[in-house]
C-alpha cells in the first residue's frame, strides 16, 4: 500500500502537471489553469484520501479565493445550495423512516416471502433493490437489502456473496431511474432543468431494460449458486420457521411516517405539473418538497429534531459536495470548461451521437474509479459549455446520468453502494471481496448496461 507521503506527492505532482499542461499545451490563461489544478486536487483527494477528502476541498477553495480566481458571490452561486438543501431534507426524511422502523418492516417483508425458490429470491432481490434505490437513495437501500440477504442466506446456510453482488448491481442501475436515486440525479436535474417526469419517461425505461439484461446475466453467471440454494431450500423446507420468528408490528407512528414519505414522493413526482399550475420557476416544488416534509417531521418529532439534523444528515459529505460544486463552477466562471468544450467538439465534431457516446463512455469508465458525484460535477460545466456551440444538450445529460450510475458497477470501488455492501459483508461474514473477484461480473454488467444505454440514446428518436 503506498504511503501517505507518496500519495500526497503524487497528488501535488499530477495536479501541478495538469495546471501547467492546460496553461502551456491548451493555451488556457493562469486563472483557468489554476482552477483546473485545484479541481484536480479535489478529485485526487477523493481518490487517495477518501477519509479526509474534505480538507483538500477546503484548502483548494481557499486558494481559489485568495488568488482571485473566483469571488465570494460566484462561489456561493456555484455551490448549488438548492441541491445540498434537497439532500438535507431527504436525509431527515430517511432518518425518520429508519427511526420508525420502516426499513425493518421492508426487511421483514422480504424475509416473509412465500414459496421461496432461488429464482424467486433473485428476481425479488433485483427488482426490490432497483425500485428501492429509485425512491430512497442507493446507499440507504443497499444497507437493508444486504441485511435481508444475509438473514435469508444465514437461514439456508448458503454463501451470501452472489446475492449481495446481484443486489448492488441492481441498486446502481435503479439509482439512475429517478431524481431521488442518486445525488447525481438531482444535480443533473437541477443544472439541466430536467423534471421528475423527464426522468420517469426517459431514465426509468432505460434503467428497467438494463435491469432485465442484468437479471439474465446473473441468472447465467451464478447458476451453480442458485442450484445450491434450491437444494438447501428443499432440505430445510421453506422459510416458514424464519417467518414465525419475524415480528415488526406496523404501529401508528410507522403509518404516519409512511404517509409523510408517500406524500413527499407523490408531490415530487407531480412537481412539474404543480409548478405550471402555480406559475413557479422550474424545479421549485421538486427542491422545496423535502424541506416541507422534513420541516413537518421536525415539528412532529420536536424532541428529536436536533438529532435528525445532527446525526442523520451527512454533513461531512454534503460540505464536500458544496465545495466541489463551487470548484466545478469556477471552471465555468474562468472559462476553462468552454475551452475544453471547444477542444472536445474539435475532436468529435458536433455530431450529437458521437458526443453523447463519448460522454457516456467517459463517465462510465470514470465513475468506475472515481466517486460519480465528483465526475458529474466536472462534466456539468463542460456540457454547459457546449450550449454556446449550439449542441442539443439533452442527450448529453442522459449520457452523463447513465454513465455515472452504470459505471459504478464495473469495479469494487465504483460506487458508495458497492463499498457499503461489501464492508458489511466483510464485517459480518469475514468475506473479503478482492478487486478481481468483483471485476468480471462488474465489468460484464457495466459493459452490457452502458452499451444498452448507448444504443437507446443513439437509436431512439425520443432522446434526440
Amino acid at each position, binding site marked *: 500500500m503506498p504511503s501517505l507521503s507518496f500519495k500526497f506527492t503524487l497528488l501535488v505532482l499530477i495536479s501541478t502537471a495538469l495546471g501547467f499542461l492546460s496553461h502551456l499545451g491548451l493555451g488556457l490563461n493562469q486563472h483557468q489553469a489554476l482552477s483546473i489544478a485545484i479541481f484536480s486536487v479535489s478529485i485526487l483527494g477523493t481518490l487517495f484520501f477518501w477519509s479526509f477528502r474534505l480538507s483538500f476541498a477546503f484548502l483548494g477553495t481557499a486558494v481559489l479565493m485568495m488568488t482571485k480566481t473566483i469571488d465570494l458571490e460566484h462561489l456561493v452561486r456555484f455551490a448549488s445550495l438548492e441541491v445540498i438543501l434537497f439532500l438535507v431534507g431527504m436525509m431527515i426524511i430517511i432518518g425518520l423512516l429508519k427511526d420508525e*422502523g420502516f*426499513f425493518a418492516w421492508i*426487511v421483514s417483508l422480504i424475509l416473509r416471502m412465500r414459496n421461496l425458490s432461488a429464482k424467486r429470491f433473485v428476481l425479488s432481490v433485483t427488482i426490490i433493490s432497483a425500485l428501492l434505490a429509485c425512491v430512497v437513495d442507493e446507499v440507504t437501500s443497499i*444497507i437493508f437489502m444486504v441485511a435481508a440477504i444475509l438473514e435469508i442466506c444465514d437461514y439456508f446456510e448458503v454463501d451470501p456473496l452472489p446475492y449481495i453482488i446481484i443486489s448492488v448491481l441492481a441498486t446502481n442501475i435503479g439509482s439512475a431511474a429517478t431524481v431521488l436515486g442518486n445525488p447525481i440525479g438531482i444535480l443533473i436535474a437541477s443544472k439541466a432543468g430536467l423534471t421528475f417526469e423527464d426522468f420517469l419517461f426517459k431514465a426509468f425505461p432505460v434503467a428497467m431494460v438494463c435491469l432485465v439484461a442484468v437479471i439474465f446475466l446473473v441468472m447465467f453467471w451464478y447458476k451453480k449458486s442458485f442450484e445450491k440454494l434450491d437444494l438447501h431450500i428443499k432440505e430445510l423446507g421453506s422459510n416458514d420457521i424464519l417467518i414465525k*420468528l*419475524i*415480528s415488526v408490528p406496523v404501529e401508528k407512528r410507522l403509518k404516519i411516517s409512511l404517509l409523510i414519505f408517500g406524500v413527499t414522493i407523490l408531490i415530487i413526482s407531480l412537481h412539474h405539473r404543480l409548478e405550471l399550475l402555480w406559475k413557479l420557476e422550474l424545479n421549485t416544488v421538486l427542491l422545496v418538497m423535502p424541506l416541507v416534509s422534513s420541516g413537518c417531521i421536525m415539528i412532529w418529532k420536536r424532541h428529536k429534531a436536533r438529532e435528525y439534523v445532527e446525526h442523520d444528515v451527512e454533513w461531512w459529505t454534503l460540505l464536500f459536495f458544496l465545495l466541489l460544486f463551487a470548484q466545478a463552477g469556477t471552471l465555468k466562471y474562468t472559462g476553462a470548461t468552454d475551452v475544453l468544450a471547444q477542444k472536445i467538439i474539435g475532436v468529435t465534431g458536433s455530431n450529437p451521437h458521437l458526443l453523447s457516446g463519448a460522454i457516456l463512455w467517459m463517465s462510465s469508465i470514470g465513475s468506475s474509479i472515481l466517486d460519480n458525484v465528483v465526475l458529474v460535477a466536472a462534466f456539468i460545466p463542460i456540457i454547459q459549455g457546449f450550449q454556446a456551440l449550439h449542441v442539443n444538450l439533452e442527450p448529453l445529460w442522459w449520457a452523463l446520468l447513465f454513465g455515472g450510475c452504470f459505471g459504478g458497477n464495473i469495479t469494487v470501488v465504483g460506487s458508495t453502494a458497492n463499498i457499503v455492501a461489501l464492508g458489511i459483508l466483510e464485517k*459480518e461474514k469475514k468475506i473479503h471481496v478482492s478487486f478481481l473477484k468483483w471485476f468480471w461480473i462488474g465489468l460484464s454488467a457495466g459493459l452490457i448496461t452502458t452499451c444498452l444505454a448507448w444504443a437507446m440514446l443513439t437509436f431512439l428518436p425520443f432522446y434526440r
Partner: protein
Amino acid sequence: MKIREIMIKEITSLSPEMSALDAWDVLQKMKISGLPVIDDKNKLVGMFTEKEILVKILPSYMEAVGKFVYDENPKAVRQKVSLLAKMRVREVMRENVITVNEDTVLCEAAHVMLTQKARRTPVLNQNQEVSGIVSRGDVLKALFAEYKE
C-alpha cells in the same frame, strides 16, 4: 486533587492474546463492565468491555435498519456468540482508549469521562505505562469525600 490520589493502583488487566471468552469470565467474576488490555511490554493496547462484545455479536447493519426484526435471537447472532469463543481479546477490544495522566485534576478526568462516554479510564504514568485505573464512581466518591470534609 489529582488522579494519582484516588486511582486504583492494583489493577487487573487482560492480555491481548487471551481468549475473549476467558476475558468475559473475568469481567463477570469481577462484576465489572470493562478492563484494560496490556501487552507484555506493559503498554496499554486497548480496552475490553461488555459494549465491545455486544458490538461484535449484534449485526453491524442494525443501526441503519433501525429495529430488530425478530421475536427471538436469530441463527446469525447465535453463530456470532459461538465465534466469539474462538476469538482473542485483541480481535474484540477497542484500540482507541481514552486515558488520563496521574497528574490530571479530578474535575478534568470527570469531564473527559463524561464527554467521551467512558465509564472508567486507565491512568498512565510518565513512561506511558498503565499505573492505575479510575472510574466515574471513584471520582464521585472523592468529590463527596472532599465536600464532607
